[in-house]
């Protein structure tokens, strides 16, 4: 912190903060909602549709070209997310899970694509949409398959525990399932993208500031470190972006599976 302050005092370096997530309307006079993340969200959804259409519109028995990639994505979601939690119901929920995974993945990847460089999911509105959708489905399926009372009973009183434990257990389970689960579901994705983008922006601005804006013998090595770290962290971010998309989809499958069958 002291060095940072020192450096800031020296060369007026300003570390990027949450303000880098605020985007003005695209041009002056544009409606307030027409911002870069909104445009990227729409473009991302369209790209997914177009890619999926080229891959799956007329699927061949012997796959060629992009169908191979599409099938790879499909089998990945099916075997890694759907089947472990949904078993024989996996195929039925694949439309939702595949859409979820592909859209989140591309929106995350926008964070490392040059020029675009903002993960759409670093704006919490988008993770909220996904999490709320899954939450509604989860509650609906739970009540439908386990009954109104049965669902909450199974949720709050998992069998096989000594009776006094339930005094503590029941309210915790209720809060955990109904409040914390959807909250963490959305925030985990959002926070990872938010923090990742902040870290990349920080190292990138260090490099830019000390190598271009304020090139000094003392600052240059620091600028170099910034560039190297930006490169390394970009690679790491790609991994995190994939991991979070995968994790979000997996949790969605887990919540749906938990509502379909009480024993979990």
């Amino acid at each position, binding site marked *: 912190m002291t060095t940072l302050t020192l450096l800031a005092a020296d060369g007026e370096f300003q570390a990027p903060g949450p303000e880098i997530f605020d985007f003005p309307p695209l041009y002056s006079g544009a409606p307030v909602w027409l911002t870069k993340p909104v445009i990227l969200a*729409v473009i991302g959804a369209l790209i997914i549709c177009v890619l999926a*259409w080229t891959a799956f519109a007329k699927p061949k028995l012997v796959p060629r070209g992009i169908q191979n990639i599409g099938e790879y994505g499909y089998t990945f979601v099916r075997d890694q997310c759907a089947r472990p939690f949904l078993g024989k119901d996996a195929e039925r929920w694949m439309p939702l899970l595949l859409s979820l995974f592909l*859209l989140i993945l591309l929106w995350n990847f926008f964070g490392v694509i040059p020029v675009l460089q903002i993960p759409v999911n670093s*704006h919490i509105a988008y993770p909220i949409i996904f999490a709320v959708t899954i939450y509604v489905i989860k509650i609906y399926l739970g009540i439908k398959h386990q009954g109104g009372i049965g669902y909450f009973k199974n949720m709050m009183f998992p069998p096989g525990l000594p009776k006094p434990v339930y005094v503590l257990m029941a309210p915790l389970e209720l809060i955990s399932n109904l409040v914390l689960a959807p909250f963490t579901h959305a925030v985990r994705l959002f926070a990872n993208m*938010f923090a990742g983008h902040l870290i990349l922006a920080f190292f990138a601005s260090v490099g830019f500031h000390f190598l271009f804006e304020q090139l000094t013998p003392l600052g240059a090595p620091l600028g170099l470190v910034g560039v190297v770290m930006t490169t390394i962290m970009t690679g790491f971010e790609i991994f995190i972006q994939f991991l979070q998309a995968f994790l979000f989809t997996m949790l969605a499958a887990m919540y749906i599976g938990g509502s379909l069958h009480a024993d979990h």
Partner: protein
Amino acid sequence: MTQAAVVLAAETNNPLIPHVYELVVGGFAFLLVFIVVGKILTPRIQKTLAERTEAIEGGIQKAENAQAEAQAVLQQYRDQLNEARQEAARLREEAREQGAQIKAELREEAQAEARRIVEAAHAQIEADKAQALAQLRSEIGRLSTDLAGRIVGESLEDDARQRRVVDRFLEELEGSGTAVR
């Protein structure tokens, strides 16, 4: 620095509060992807994958069937070959037996024929002999009466004449004997 940060923080939106317009855009974007990718395209790829599994399983089944069929045909050919060999051996054996039988039969027949011929010859000889005897007997009787008549007719005048008569008779007898034979 801290003041600037505070000012900046005050200016920026709270990142945990979503923009309403982004909720709307995100909702529609997700809905679009869900309809196109989930509702339209996923069933297609599921169908294709199922068909592929079926095709592969069918192909394996077909290959197994073909192999089994080939095995069956091979077995059949082997059986037929074996059968043919056995048949050939049997035929050879039969031919040999038949040959031997024919030979034996022919021999027997030939022997029977020879025997028959010999018997026929014997019978013929016997018949000839009997006939000759019968003829001879009647001849002798006739000759005897002849001779006796002649002797009586000549009245047996003298010995010389008698002797001539007997000699003449015997000469005649010899001459008729050659004529009879």
